């Protein structure tokens, strides 16, 4: 069942990449996955609508798995945030499927994506907690509150860089070390400095 689910989702993603969210049907997904329509309905009883929500959730999770792998080797809070923001920003800009869907049918994508972003934020916050513990938070700073605040800001910057050039390691280091972490952590960092 898990295998079938994965196969149908991958096939659905391929269809969305080709035709978009609105034009992808259960038949298309079934044909692409080489399973029957009945099989798709068995895994996704809600049909097309459930399938589309599931594929957005799945693609989002895939993105976070890649992000997680990217920051795995980081040894400090600063490094994990810098690598994370840069990688996530690049991935979003270079994600052709995401960019095309955002151009042509954002109304189909955004309700699900916004809902998913709440889970993502919790995931980022939980991921940051041990790094914050290791780094040590400033006096009077609540660890959970800081993690939630940082996760919100990471999400905000990765999706909309605003005035910052997030391809420039120096700017990202300034954003993370000065703007975002100055109030959160205790004293200057002991790590080797930003990635070059």
């Amino acid at each position, binding site marked *: 069942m898990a295998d079938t689910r994965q196969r149908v989702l991958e096939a659905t993603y391929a269809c969305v990449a080709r035709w978009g969210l609105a034009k992808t049907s259960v038949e298309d997904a079934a044909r692409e996955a080489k399973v029957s329509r009945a099989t798709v309905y068995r895994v996704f009883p809600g049909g097309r609508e459930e399938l589309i929500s599931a594929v957005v959730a799945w693609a989002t999770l895939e993105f976070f798995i890649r992000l997680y792998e990217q920051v795995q080797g980081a040894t400090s809070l600063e490094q994990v945030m810098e690598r994370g923001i840069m990688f996530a920003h690049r991935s*979003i800009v270079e994600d052709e499927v995401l960019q095309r869907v*955002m151009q*042509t049918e*954002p*109304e*189909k994508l*955004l*309700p699900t*994506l*916004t809902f998913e*972003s*709440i889970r993502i*934020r919790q995931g980022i916050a939980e991921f940051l907690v041990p790094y914050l513990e290791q780094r040590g938070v*400033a006096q*009077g*700073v609540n660890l*959970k*509150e*800081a993690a*939630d*605040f940082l996760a*919100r*800001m990471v*999400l*905000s*910057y990765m*999706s*909309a*860089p*605003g*005035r910052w050039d997030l391809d420039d390691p120096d700017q990202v280091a*300034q954003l993370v*070390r*000065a*703007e*975002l*972490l*100055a*109030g*959160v952590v205790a004293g200057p960092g002991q790590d080797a400095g930003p990635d070059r």
Partner: protein
Amino acid sequence: MAGGVAGSMLPSVEPEATLSRPSSPNRVRIIDATLACLALHGTSKTTVDDIARRAGVSRATVYRVFPGGRDEVLGAVVDTEMARLFSALGVRLGEAGDLTEALVGGIVEASTRVRGHAALAYLVEHEPEMVLGHLAFDESDRLLATASRFTAPFLARWMSPMEAGRVAEWATRIVLSYAIAPSSEMDLTQPAQTAHLVETFVLPGIRALHAADSPTAIDITPFEQGCDQPDRHAVRGAAGGRPTTPPAAHHRLSEYSNPVEQYKGATT
């Protein structure tokens, strides 16, 4: 979002441009009636007839003021609500005596207005696609640029225009984040909680950013007291109409306009 009603929900012009348009009583009446309709039925079920009835004017009057009909009215509603928000923000920021007051006041004002907006609440609940399009990726960048372009000159009383731009953008991100996904622990409509957030996370960040750019520590009190104080009456007088940039910031606007114009060019 392409065309149609969805397209018209975009703020099509800069708030400054909207605000300088003379608003006839009928125009305001129609816009306020539309807001009331949206709060009850959303965009898809609101017709020109509904709007005319609620405004107490004829259909012909609605079309005379808004020849484009329903879509044009909806576009004007977004522009007007943005203008009203910026106008209220201008008053709050203009009155602030120091940077902390400006940040806390601005964040609370914006959060309260967003939270208490009945039409917006209806749309978020029933037609989320109408709202979310403005809050994601490139459109979010556009909104950040518009909001920070308006609020930065007020903050430039306490820091360089470059820094003010960044801080204004940061504050906008904070408002948006907690508006889209409210937190049970942090309610930004509450001044005490907002002050805690600003003092804990934002002010140290502003000081550190400043230190990273220049060797002297940032002065949180208004510099050049007196000549630099904005004319509060001018700002206050703008509450119902046109928000004015605090006159005090004008001499720095020339420096400020450079990165802003570049940014504008990159996003439009």
